[in-house]
């Protein structure tokens, strides 16, 4: 039977990708260079050692503990021997023990991990229990006991270190195997009856291997540390002195009282060198395999480019006014991603605007920029955000903190992640109030929290529950209650209903709409689904590839859409009067924001694109009163 092969890139191509990302990893490179150096020393040891550490000819008592000199670069030891030579030859022992012991550990750990992860059930249970026991029993004392009861020899040391060093590998490999097992091609191979051994060899192992390599590097470093410790404790093989043993001799034979620091420092330095090189190399490999962004929400953001503060007249202006806002993501050594460009809209008291577009069109970026919550790489490169005439792009963080939540709050997408899992929901709502009304007495605060939860239909006795005890819909309501906590004037709702079932979606929408009417809120409703906002919106702004595709009041958008993208979105929207009609979705994906097309951003997917679209970017044309669209066709019509 022919089996579907694992999607295998050619291994050479993979290697070159790997090498090029390792080259950009200073930590891994330094480690690799340090390692290469010491391995070379170990291989050439007998050739480069200035003296033969085994011979005692020509050594007199005046040679004992001589400080470093031209004849003995690192001095001499308690037997008058050259420390540098013993050091060079000792590198062999450390590396040999490290590599062979790690080999044993990796084989055991790899087999245990793969078998446990792949077979699951009882086998997994037993194997993981054994691993747990091994992990909890202190290994060094056990190694000491075993070696003390047997004969200290190189073989015994390798064996004992190897046999105790596999637990971490087993755990890591098991979870990776579990992940691999549920992949499609493995399931398919199983379904068509491939043997377990075959699947493990051809499908699981190749995907676990990179991880195993990282583990191997780290295990070698741990094994070398263990060898040096055992040798230092006097359990090393006396016939092949390692660095640990040199230290054992020096420490036990008066180097400390003689002040012979060189005998103590040099071998230890060797151990640190090898272990550090392996650690750095291992960490480097790990980073190459699992790149981490290393960014977070508390990093200082990039300063707004147009930083001059120009407030508007509060009386005349709208509640929220966004003018020509442009936001770029600026990553080192990459082209800036132009996430949002030249977006303008206004929002009045009690109004609800829908911000519509597929994911990856810059909606979330735009929304986060209003309160300047952008990730560290994001920068407002142009434009202004006015709230009641106040220029939010120019406020300091402290000033902004008085606007955040108090005036403008956010209902985040996916309330599960936006609520802190280890604090109760009530506590997190109360926190927002306390921040902005610090003087509120405790009982009034609790009353207010209960009232807010009541407003969104959550019973008071859920107040002291944790987010994981809530259902999905309840969490989203709790998020809304939290957004209402400080009586804000504007609420930004970022896809508040995605990932909820239709019934609950409808409930949440209704809730938001009724709150708007009751409390006079202005709402920015971010969504990828035109249908969702149809009934509740006043205005709609359709975004595509970071720019405004079309902006108009809701009736105009639904009845007289002019931009091909809006028209396509409307086609994708299920018509309730014709329930049988098939949904069409626009083929293709929105453009990558760091590789935007030269002309119209919609051109690659536009069904009626023509020559000019690919060359020239259309500007935003007014098509009617308060109706704008950015399409060359619109201009042509006028």
């Amino acid at each position: 039977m022919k089996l579907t092969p694992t999607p295998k890139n050619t291994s050479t191509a993979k290697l070159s990708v790997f090498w090029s990302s390792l080259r950009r990893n200073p930590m891994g490179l330094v480690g690799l260079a340090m390692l290469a150096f010491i391995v070379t020393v170990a291989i050439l040891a007998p050739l480069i050692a200035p003296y033969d550490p085994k011979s005692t000819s020509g050594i007199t008592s005046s040679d004992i503990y001589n400080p470093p000199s031209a004849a003995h670069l690192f001095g001499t030891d308690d037997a008058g021997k050259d420390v540098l030579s013993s050091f060079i030859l000792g590198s062999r022992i450390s590396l040999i023990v490290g590599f062979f012991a790690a080999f044993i550990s990796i084989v055991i750990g790899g087999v245990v991990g793969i078998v446990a992860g792949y077979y699951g059930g009882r086998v997994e249970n037993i194997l993981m229990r054994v691993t747990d026991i091994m992990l909890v029993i202190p290994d060094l004392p056990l190694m000491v006991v075993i070696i003390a009861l047997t004969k200290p020899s190189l073989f015994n040391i390798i064996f004992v270190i190897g046999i105790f060093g596999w637990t971490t590998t087993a755990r890591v490999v098991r979870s990776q195997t579990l992940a691999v097992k549920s992949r499609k091609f493995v399931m398919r191979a199983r379904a068509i009856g491939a043997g377990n051994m075959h699947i493990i060899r051809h499908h699981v192992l190749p995907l676990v291997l990179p991880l195993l390599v990282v583990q191997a590097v780290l295990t070698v470093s741990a094994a070398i540390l263990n060898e040096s410790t055992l040798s230092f404790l006097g359990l090393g093989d006396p016939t092949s002195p390692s660095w640990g043993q040199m230290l054992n001799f020096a420490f036990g034979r008066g180097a400390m009282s003689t002040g012979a620091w060189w005998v103590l420092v040099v071998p230890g330095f060797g151990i640190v060198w090898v272990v550090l090189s392996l650690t750095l190399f291992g960490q480097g490999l790990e980073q190459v395999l699992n790149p981490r962004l290393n960014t977070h929400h508390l990093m200082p953001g990039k300063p707004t480019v147009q930083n001059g503060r120009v407030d508007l007249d509060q009386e005349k202006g709208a509640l929220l006014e966004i003018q020509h806002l442009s936001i770029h993501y600026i990553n080192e050594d990459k082209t800036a991603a132009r996430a949002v460009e030249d977006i303008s809209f206004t929002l009045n008291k009690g109004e609800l605007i829908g911000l519509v577009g597929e994911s990856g069109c810059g909606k979330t970026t735009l929304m986060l920029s209003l309160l300047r919550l952008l990730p560290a790489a994001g920068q407002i490169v142009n434009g202004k955000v006015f709230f009641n005439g106040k220029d939010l792009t120019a406020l300091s963080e402290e000033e902004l903190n008085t606007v955040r939540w108090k005036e403008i709050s956010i209902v985040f997408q996916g309330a599960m992640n936006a609520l802190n899992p280890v604090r109760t929901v009530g506590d997190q709502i109360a926190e927002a109030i306390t921040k902005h009304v610090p003087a509120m007495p405790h009982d009034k605060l609790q009353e207010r929290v209960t009232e807010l939860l009541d407003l969104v239909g959550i019973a008071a006795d859920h107040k002291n529950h944790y987010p994981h005890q809530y259902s999905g819909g309840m969490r989203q309501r709790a998020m809304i209650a939290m957004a209402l906590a400080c009586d804000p004037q504007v609420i930004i709702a970022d896809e508040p209903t995605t990932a909820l079932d239709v019934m609950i979606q409808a409930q949440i929408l209704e809730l938001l709409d009724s709150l708007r009417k009751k409390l006079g809120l202005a709402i920015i409703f971010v969504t990828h689904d035109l249908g969702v906002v149809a009934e509740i919106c006043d205005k709609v702004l359709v975004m595509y590839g970071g720019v405004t595709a079309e902006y108009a009041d809701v009736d105009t958008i639904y009845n007289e859409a002019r931009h091909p993208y809006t028209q396509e979105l409307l086609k994708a929207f299920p018509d309730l009067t014709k329930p049988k009609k098939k949904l069409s979705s626009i083929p293709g994906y929105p453009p990558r924001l760091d590789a935007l097309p030269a002309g119209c951003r919609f051109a690659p997917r536009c069904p009626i694109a023509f020559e000019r679209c690919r060359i020239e970017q259309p500007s935003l044309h007014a098509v009617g009163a308060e109706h704008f669209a950015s399409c060359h066709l619109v201009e042509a019509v006028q």
Partner: protein
Amino acid sequence: MLLKRLGWALFTILFVVILNFFLFRILPGDPARQGIRDPRLSLETINAIRVRFGLDKPVINCFETLNPIKIGSCGVNPLDTQFFIYVGNLLKGDMGTSFYYNRPVEEVLGERLWNTILLIGAGQILAILLGVIFGLFAAWKVRTALDYTALISGLVAWSLPTFWLAIILLFWGTNMGLPIGGKATPGMSSYPFMDQLGDLFQHLFLPTLAYTIIYMGEYMLIMRSSLLDVLAEDYIMAAKAKGLSTFQILKDHALKNSMLPLVTIIAINLGFTVAGVIQIETVFSWPGLGGAIFESVGRKDYPLLQGAFLLIAICVILANLIADLTYSYLDPRVQVD
């Protein structure tokens, strides 16, 4: 859940007891056989040992001895075998007699246990405290000079052999006039209490410093990466959107969440911690359990070695249990009933 964890800990302890017994019977250096050949012991002591360990009796049903393997009768009364006599003695708190000290093992180790707990306690608290603080700053100021310095010093500390760091510190410390080892200056017990305490601190200083440096690096690295994960979470952005200051966010939203993984790692690490303690106590001749292990290897004092290993293993298992329970107490997502 609580019962299950307790049962699991008991099971592990039982496993260690069995392992401890058979290891010493299977491997060449049987303590009893060794001990009886030991010329330091008087005839009465040898006889007392023979009776207490039941050395004339089979090791366990079906086996007369295990090294070399000698098959015996399977029909003997299990309670009349060496294994069950050993377990029975353990339950009575009798761990045998130290060859070197010629005193009951439990007595010798009892004093030393507290010294070790003192050292681990002081070192562990400092290491956790400093590790958390440095890790917090490193993660908060990620990709700055501060972060890189912390990262590299953490990796270097991780790569240091504990005993070597201890030697270097001892070398430096003795030049600075600190005591060269032990727990107290001889003859100190006749001095006033405050002087004794000061003396203890002087002796405790270097071992604790070594311990702290070794484990602080690791805790810092863990804290850093765990905090980096937490600070990238949506609820941190939500906290920022609420208008909370950076300090408030770190204190109220990031610290507890990022310390949870640390608790697990500390629990897992306890076994490794012992490795560090053995080395530090050896170098500083600190009279603790770890030192006892090293000394008994050199002196071939097998009953003490066996006892010390058992005691250390039990302590680690119990500490692990406590850490486990602490975790489930801290994290509301884990239920303990």
